């Protein structure tokens, strides 16, 4: 009797576990719109070179041309 009750409980626990895990999966497959937008911005900025943090400085004339040459 007690064993039977235990197996019923075990079955219920198993079902709850399956439910919990599937809930996780469901949450995970929601499309992360904000993250995708951030990723897109990052890649577009690089491809179009929109935000050059270390933009190459215009080469300054380091040495004046020697007029004698």
């Amino acid at each position: 009797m007690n064993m039977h009750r235990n197996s019923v409980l075990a079955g219920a626990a198993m079902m709850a576990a399956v439910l919990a895990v599937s809930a996780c999966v469901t949450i995970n497959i929601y499309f992360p719109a904000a993250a995708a937008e951030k990723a897109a911005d990052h890649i577009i900025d690089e491809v179009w070179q929109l935000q050059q943090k270390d933009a190459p400085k215009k080469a300054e004339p380091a040495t004046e041309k020697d007029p004698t040459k």
Partner: protein
Amino acid sequence: MTKTLRTLIHIMLAAFLLTGFAHAQGNLEINTPAIAQLKSAMQGRHAQLAPFYASGAVGLAHDGTVQLRDASLVPLPQRGAANNVIAAENADRAALYREIARANGNPSWEAEIRSTFATRWIDKAQPGWWVQNASSVWAKK
């Protein structure tokens, strides 16, 4: 019975923790070799495409691709090359959207990633470039 209940509670706790962890990850994975390669190919190609964007020959379509919208704006001898560069760009863009979805373990996200990119390409386009609205109508920015 108490043991079963305890197990149950542990499972539920683990599930909540996992969920929280997934949500804490606010970024998509975009640092893979495949994505880096596509990005640099597209960056190199941009120098060829930029004059076409500026002249209006090529525009940014609402499906995340680039399209030849007015071939007459491309000098005849350059038209073949223009078509090639457009085709190469669109192939790389499609691969990029696919790779991002794959790198994040959800190949089914590809269409949503494509539409996110489509919006952002258009938003970031320079004034004077041609962009397409949701009804496929071209307009100059």
